[in-house]
């Protein structure tokens, strides 16, 4: 009994409204078996979460927190570190390349996310129809994501080649002007975004497909009886019910595109000039090519804060009504 009531007490004390309202206080019973069950019920969540907690803690959270500590040091990984307080952070404020790479990354995220998400939803809607051959198409659309990223990035370098690449052959054959793609300071970033959209759209489509399959058919049948059209159905049924999936896709793909690295590393090395010098590539350069690991850690902490804010924003506005009842 003590355990339960103390729980209830703590909950009242720490309960933060919408966040974690838990076992209600009126559950204090004298019935022993009922109490044991209550105990089990209050312990169960912790037991369920425990294994993952150990894993995430040990292999992700602690290394991430170590990065925060490193950010207060000057450290080249080869000699003992020196504590420098906030020095690295102050330096970042005066680093034009860092500031430029923040803008570049934001631009990249904007190029990437809307197009990728909308196309993924549209493909999922098309593929969710019961037509012959859909299984094959599903597999084909997922193919870009199945490939080893390194191998596929080298292929794209060749696709984009300004004198003998496929894209330019295509453009000039239909009378459009040739583009410079990766060789042009203005076209390189969109080209990198294009490759990532190509690679990740099918992946995101998978989640939308799974989400669509979770929507009960009778909802559509009912609304058809009401005489609503397909477009209205999409906005009144499909989209609201896809909201949890949408939140997942948006949060994870925004996190991923803020950290874009592989394609830039293989295809452009941040160039030409600084046109594709995205933030995560700059972190890599500072850490491993310039031996400023403390500075790289401070850059990472700033990135972390930015992504965290964007994610909280998304959870608030996209995920607002995730816990509705399907009724």
């Amino acid at each position, binding site marked *: 009994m003590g355990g339960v009531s103390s729980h209830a007490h703590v909950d009242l004390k720490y309960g933060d409204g919408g966040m*974690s309202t838990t076992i209600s206080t009126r559950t204090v019973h004298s019935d022993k078996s009922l109490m044991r069950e209550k105990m089990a019920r209050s312990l169960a969540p912790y037991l369920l979460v425990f294994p993952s907690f150990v894993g995430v803690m040990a292999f992700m959270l602690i290394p991430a927190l170590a990065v925060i500590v490193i950010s207060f040091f000057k450290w080249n*990984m080869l000699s003992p570190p020196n504590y420098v307080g906030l020095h690295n952070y102050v330096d970042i404020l005066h680093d034009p390349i860092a500031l430029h790479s923040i803008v570049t990354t934001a631009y990249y995220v904007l190029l990437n996310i809307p197009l990728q998400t909308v196309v993924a939803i549209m493909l999922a809607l098309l593929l969710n129809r019961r037509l012959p051959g859909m299984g094959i198409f599903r597999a084909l659309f997922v193919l870009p994501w199945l490939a080893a990223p390194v191998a596929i990035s080298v292929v794209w370098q060749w696709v984009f080649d300004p004198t003998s690449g496929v894209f330019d052959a295509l453009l000039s054959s239909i009378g459009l002007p040739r583009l410079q793609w990766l060789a042009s300071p203005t076209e390189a970033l969109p080209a990198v975004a294009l490759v990532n959209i190509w690679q990740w759209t099918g992946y995101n489509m998978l989640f939308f497909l799974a989400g669509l399959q979770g929507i009960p058919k009778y909802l559509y049948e009912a609304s058809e009886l009401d005489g609503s059209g397909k477009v209205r159905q999409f906005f009144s049924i499909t989209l609201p019910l896809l909201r949890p999936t949408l939140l997942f896709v948006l949060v994870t793909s925004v996190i991923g595109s803020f950290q874009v690295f592989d394609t830039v590393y293989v295809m452009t090395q941040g160039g030409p000039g600084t046109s594709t010098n995205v933030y995560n590539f700059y972190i890599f350069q500072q850490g491993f090519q310039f031996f400023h690991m403390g500075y790289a850690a401070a850059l990472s902490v700033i990135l972390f804060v930015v992504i965290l804010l964007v994610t909280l924003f998304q959870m608030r506005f996209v995920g607002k009504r995730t816990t509705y009842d399907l009724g």
Partner: protein
Amino acid sequence: MGNVVTYIVLIIGAFISVFPYLWSILTSLKPENQVFSSHFFSLPTHPDWGNYVHIFQSVDLGRYLLNTLFVAVVSVAGQVVFGSLAAYAFARLDFRGKNAIFLAYLSTLMVPNIVTLIPLFIMMKYLGWINTYYALIAPTVLGTPVGIFLLRQFFLTIPAELEEAARLDGAGILRTFVQIIIPLSRPILSTLAIITFVSSWNNFLWPLIVTNSDQMKLISVGIASFQMQYGTEWNYMMAAATVALLPLVILFLFFQRYVIESIQLTGLK
């Protein structure tokens, strides 16, 4: 009419998805001196399986494939079991610190792994796990934030009445989970299984850093070994990439058939 438009859109989309592979498969069948000849989709003069023979002879590709398969299968099993347990708690149960813990999980994704890999590597050193399967499996086998997030979002959409009914029948949490939630979650669990499998199959940087010996290499690291300082042995690399891709395609076709058909049969949705 609508169907015709659907198919046209799908065929165009499919071509865009596939065309780089056509090049890589064609390249994998060419001798080195035909790789860049003439235009993009030029056919090899004689399809040449020599590249495939070469890659299996020059590196221990079979061993790499087995290693990768082992790591991927164990990761999938762990992720599905532990990930779904945790996700269920996050989605359906109330407990103190729930949101804080969940946010902490997500926040680990927001620090670039380029910098976290140094502390992680040093930790592996003190655990004595460098160059072992433990180091390859441990970070995913207990459930990852992405996996848990995915399942949590799906569990949130399952009607609460279904559970309540079970609870009134006297079912405990675990039984409710196994008997009610799991059967309804087959599509999403399969999706999770696929994405976990593929991402551990293609995982590159961490395996490269944390293993040293040839016996421990994974396929992704093996493919990259055909890269040189200033260029790439394209024909070999594409042959290796094709070999690595094939199992994934087969797996995907198998999985999605199972998933889709199981949903359509139950008719519940």
